[in-house]
Structures are given as structure tokens and as C-alpha cells.
């Protein structure tokens, strides 16, 4: 499984929290707080250092998996500027 950059994981998580457009009630998410385990790795691409951040692949970690980090992130809705 290809590891993703942290930003891709964050965008996927926030997008997953948006209600379906066809929802019966006109709801919208105004804030989102996540507290998730995260597999962190560093990837060197030339001179750039990219931080990879992925949700655990399995529910149970094995002795062969890297130690997981824990990520807490608070998103707030805001208007486009």
C-alpha cells in the first residue's frame, strides 16, 4: 500500500466529514476535531523532506509496525478570502 503525504490524509479526512449533497436536511459541518493514531514516516525527495502520515492499515499493530504517533487536529469553517 502506497503511503500518502500527511496533507493528503488530512484532506481526505475533512472531505469525508462533509455531508452528502443529497442529504434531506441542509446540514453543514462547522468544525471538526480529530484524535487519531497516525503512522508517521519521513521521505526525502531531493532536497525536500516530505512528512508522510497515514492512518493505521490494520486495527491491531504488529511487532513489525513502526510505533504510531497520535494526531489531534482542530478544523474550523471559514469563508474563502
Amino acid at each position, binding site marked *: 500500500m502506497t503511503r500518502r503525504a500527511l496533507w493528503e490524509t488530512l*484532506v481526505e479526512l475533512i472531505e469525508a466529514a462533509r455531508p452528502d449533497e443529497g442529504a434531506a436536511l441542509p446540514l453543514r459541518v462547522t468544525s471538526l476535531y480529530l484524535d487519531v493514531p497516525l503512522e508517521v514516516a*519521513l521521505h526525502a525527495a531531493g532536497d525536500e523532506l516530505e*512528512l508522510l502520515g497515514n492512518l493505521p492499515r490494520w486495527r491491531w499493530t504488529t511487532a513489525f509496525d513502526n510505533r504510531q504517533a497520535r494526531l489531534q487536529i482542530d478544523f474550523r469553517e471559514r*469563508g474563502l478570502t
Partner: protein
Amino acid sequence: MNRRGGGLPIEQFIQALTSQLDRAQSAMALKASAGLPLTFAVKDISIDLRAHVEVEGSAVRIVPAGPGDGDASTLHIALTTITRPMIEENTLQLSAEPDEPSLKDVLGDEVSEEEQRRLEWAGVHTVSQLRELQRRSSEDAIVRVAQLPVERLRAALTRASQPFVSHVAPDLPRNGGRPLDEPPLLRIRGHNLMQEQTPQVRIQGEQIPVLKATAKELVIAPLAHQLGGTLEVEIAPGLVSATEFDLTPLNRPAKREAAAPPSEPAAPADEGGEP
């Protein structure tokens, strides 16, 4: 990327993290601009990273914990969004002038890589910032931050105060309104070319009139036989720069100059022009 011994400086990790947040923010804004008027912004983020922490000199390095690393440390990093006024309020403004040489360029081996790194912690990247910090704080403050012996700091500051000539060129297009049969004015560029008083400029030991003086540029009026040789700029007793230059081809008859105006040759100064 600067990785030694498998460890990564912690500031590089934080830079990588903030870079990811920026990219996430841009991607969300892009998606939202395609249809929705609202997007999400990161308000706070914290991460508990399991890692081994190493200290190498003044650098704190981390190595992410691998499988089975039971005794790894937990690094709790919390970031929050701040506004531009908050940044400005909490940052000591030590402005660097454009084209200013770095500390390393000027001080060379006078300060070690480690000492330079500690100075950078204090926001000192250039010589003018070092002098500004000395003026605003004190020698003691710099000694404490950079853990530099005071004698070495003084030596570094003295060296940083030396005048430095990078370029000597004729002022041909205007020539200060001088007749064409007179030798051109010379523009001397560099840094630390003036302190409180107009510097003394000598060519081959002869005093040259200084028409204009700033820290970065001098305009002098040499005689015809003074268009080459050793140029000395003395900004204070003992603070002298000596530079070899040769613009003698400019010393030619006026009529020839009037018939075919010469291009503006420049004599790059000897980089090693130190006292």
C-alpha cells in the same frame, strides 16, 4: 535535507509538518473554490510522536521510533494558528540589507559552524544584524546566546567592521560634470565603507578627494596617474581595506574619448582586499 547519524534536526521536522499543513490548506481552498463558499482552516494541531531524541552539540535530533522500540520518547508538538500582527509583535526585527554578505562570508573561520548556528537562533544571519544586536543588547547577551568566548566575539566583531571593497568602476556617463580631458570619477562599492566620518581614501599612498560617501559606496576624484594601484580605504584608525585595481586604459586623450565614448569597464576588486 540535513541528516547526520540517522537523526533529523527537530526544526526540520517541524518545517516538514507546517509545510504539510500549508499544502492541506491550499488543497481544501482549491476544492472549495470549485463550488462551496466555505472551507476549513486548521485551528490547532498537536502530534505525539514516538521518537528517540539525540542531542548533538546544540542540535536536537530525532529518530522516529521503529518496530519494537519500547523505550522511545514521546514528543508532544502543538501548533496553533497565529495572525500576522502576533508574529510582528513577537519578533525582534533585525533587518538584513539586500545583497548583504552572510556571517560566513565575512567571518570565515572566525566563528565555527556551531557558533554560527547559535547566532542564527538569535536571528543573526548577517554582519549588520550582529552589530545591531550588539547595539541593542550587549556583548554579554551575544556571548550567552552563542556561547562564544568574549575575545572571539570581539575579534569577530572587529573583523565584521572592516571595510570591504568589492568593485571599483569609473563614473563615465556623468563624470560629475567634469571636462572630458580629466580622468573619470571612480565609484567604489562594498560594505562598511563609512562610519561616522568620511573615510580617507588613498591610491598608491596618495590622498584622494572623496566627493560622496555612504556605507556602501564612495565616489572619489583621482588624478590621471591615480587610475591604478593599491586603493586603501580607511574608515577609522586601524580599519583599512587595501585593494589592487587597474583602470589605467581610461587615461587617454580627451578627443579620442569624445569621438568614441568608451564602454564602462569595471575593475573587480581583489576579493582578498583585507588590511
